[in-house]
């Protein structure tokens, strides 16, 4: 499990000082309880189950996957918002796994989050100045007039009019509210910002404004981002490396270019092929792999490779063996890790005929679906 792709990278020791965050075999199980007075555990949701990854200073790691794959839980574990069930998180070399609130406090300044919903994450009854000033108050950094100056500086940095610090969130548009969230996250000059779907709730033309802002801030303050989104084209645009999650585990990790141009995991390939192409000619030409059925329940995840019940290439061994993240093809760089026993070669077309085990779904009719996009 410790054999992450980045560990085996040549010269890993030299850049070790540059590793900001190291996550090793991290897991989070949520108990399911039943009973009115005597609650007993009847099951567990395996939200995150053995994730290992490294994050270098100044890079952006994209995290993608379907609803319920555990990407938000992973983000909250790293931010220390949930205690972990297993595994460790090291931040700048120090173990911060399950620290007591007091000991965690200094690290909370370093790791901040930006949330998806700019309507839900800002208290509607408080003025913007006091919302952005919260981190200063909590950590006792600045008071009174000094705090106000700092808040106004921050508003200016994220492109808000500093004179609006006395307004309420309702007086701002969606894009501006997200800027307020960014300002709040930036207040204590953190080293790592976890962006959980920061632009999903915004209009297309506003999305690009916020993405550009995040990129500018990264350059200016040497920030490291974990960027969670379900929009794969935005993830590709902002990320240096991208990690694909499926049912609580990493399916594939690679540089953005490698992952998008040469996906190795059948799930990655299917996910990428499902993204609508904003170009009519290419949309017509491209082959779409339609996945069968829905993501299985994380309460009782499939044995072996988690993806095998939906995988167009699944073989018998996929149901027994849990694959590790490794470089799967000889010419793949060591940074390209794929957790798959039967990875996809360049230009290989995926069809369900390749599968030698029965697939979930509604049987033969569905398994033959290999659509051409558009057409």
């Amino acid at each position, binding site marked *: 499990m410790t054999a992450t792709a980045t560990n085996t990278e040549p010269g890993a020791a030299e850049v070790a000082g540059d590793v900001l965050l190291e996550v090793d075999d991290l897991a989070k199980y949520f108990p399911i309880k039943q009973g009115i007075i005597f609650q007993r555990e009847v099951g567990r949701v395996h939200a995150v189950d053995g994730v290992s990854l490294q994050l270098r200073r100044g890079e952006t790691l994209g995290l993608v996957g379907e609803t319920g794959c555990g990407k938000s839980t992973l983000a909250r574990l790293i931010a220390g918002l949930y205690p972990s069930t297993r595994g460790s998180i090291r931040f700048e070399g120090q173990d911060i796994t399950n620290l007591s609130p007091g000991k965690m406090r200094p690290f909370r300044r370093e790791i901040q989050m930006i949330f998806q919903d700019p309507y839900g994450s800002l208290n509607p009854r408080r003025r913007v100045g006091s919302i952005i000033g919260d981190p200063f108050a909590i950590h006792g950094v600045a008071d009174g007039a000094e705090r106000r100056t700092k808040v106004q500086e921050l508003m200016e940095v994220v492109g808000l009019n500093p004179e609006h610090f006395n307004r309420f969130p309702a007086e701002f548009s969606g*894009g501006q509210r997200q800027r307020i969230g960014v300002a709040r996250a930036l207040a204590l000059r953190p080293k790592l910002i976890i962006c959980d779907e920061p632009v999903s709730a915004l209009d297309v033309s*506003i999305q690009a404004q916020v993405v550009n802002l995040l990129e500018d801030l990264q350059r200016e303050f040497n920030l490291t981002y974990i960027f969670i989104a379900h929009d794969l084209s*935005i993830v590709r645009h902002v990320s240096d490396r991208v990690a694909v999650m499926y049912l609580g585990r990493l399916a594939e990790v690679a540089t953005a270019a490698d992952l998008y141009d040469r996906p190795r995991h059948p799930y990655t390939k299917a996910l990428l092929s*499902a993204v*609508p192409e904003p170009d*009519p000619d290419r949309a017509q030409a491209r082959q*779409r792999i339609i996945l069968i059925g*829905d993501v299985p329940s994380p309460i009782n995840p499939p044995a072996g490779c988690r993806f095998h019940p939906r995988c167009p290439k699944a073989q018998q061994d996929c149901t027994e063996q849990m694959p590790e993240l490794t470089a799967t093809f000889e010419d793949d760089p060591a940074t390209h890790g794929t957790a798959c026993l039967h990875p996809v070669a360049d230009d290989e077309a995926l069809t369900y005929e390749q599968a030698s085990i029965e697939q979930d779904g*509604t049987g033969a009719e569905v398994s033959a679906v290999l*659509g051409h996009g558009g057409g």
Partner: protein
Amino acid sequence: MILDVQNLGVTARDGSPLVSDVSFRLEPGERLSLIGESGSGKSLTSFAITGLLPDGLTATGSVELANVQVVGAKERALVPLRGRTASTVFQEPLTALDPLMRLGAQVAEPLRRHLGLRGAALRDAVHAALEEVRLPDPERIARAYPHEISGGQRQRVAIAAALACRPQLLIADEPTTALDVTVQAQILDLIQRLQREFETAVIMITHDLGVVAELADQVLVMYAGKPVEVADSRTIYYGPHHPYTKGLIESIPSASSIGHQLRPITGQPPSLINLPRGCSFHPRCPYVMPQCRSDIPPLEPIGAAEHLSACFLPETALGFSEESERLRGAAAGVPLAGASAGAADAETTNSPSATGRASA
């Protein structure tokens, strides 16, 4: 012709226009996409087509749905049309489905009402409808409640109910926005298959230009309650005339944008209550000309007869020619690159001052 919309408008109780000048026609089997940002009036347009406008809003102009005039029609006259001639699939299947009703009963409703099916025939028709949208185990799904199935499955049930009576027109209002890309691909695939099979005309309402590229024959771009450009989808993508359309396409990340800044449209959509004078888009437009601030550009043919655009710019202005670069510089006073850098502060100020700056 299944649908003929002429000069459709929607006005609020105080008479202020929320949507105006929408005109288009739809033949059986044709696909039209309405695209625009939130508040651009695309959903109101779709509500007006089936006479489902919320209380207090009135439709003006003309909507002929299978030769029945919808605007001003009595509720009683419209009921036979809904679910029979035209059906709508909404964005959020969890709110579109009744949480206290079994799914089978919800799919059965249009079949019972419009086709008069009862008993075993009704049950078989429900199962057939569920099977058609490729839901596994239709009998189990028919007995289940909405919360017991996944979001993608719920949307399939909603589509099954919408298509149960083989409507001639399907209006899909952001049908995949709440879904994952893999499920979105399944649903889009399903809509296309059913559309081909039954010659259903489809109106797809979306803000996702990727969905439009996959699904549309014709595209109608809306901005601030008005259509600003109408053309076939290839023209919209490869040769847009209206700067807003061009801006929308440029602001989505693509293979060519990697390593570069995105080019967002500066500022934000105007409030419908307080529209800027002249062209509604002029405060955000990099090509703005003096004329744009005073006159409202009409929706007129540009080059090909099928291509309409509401913009004063010459026909080829947005082509990638030297002429357009020159024009762009002269018209806006600022090159586009500068516009993206100024995005942040333009958004914070409201439109009048942004206008002031552009004209300065």
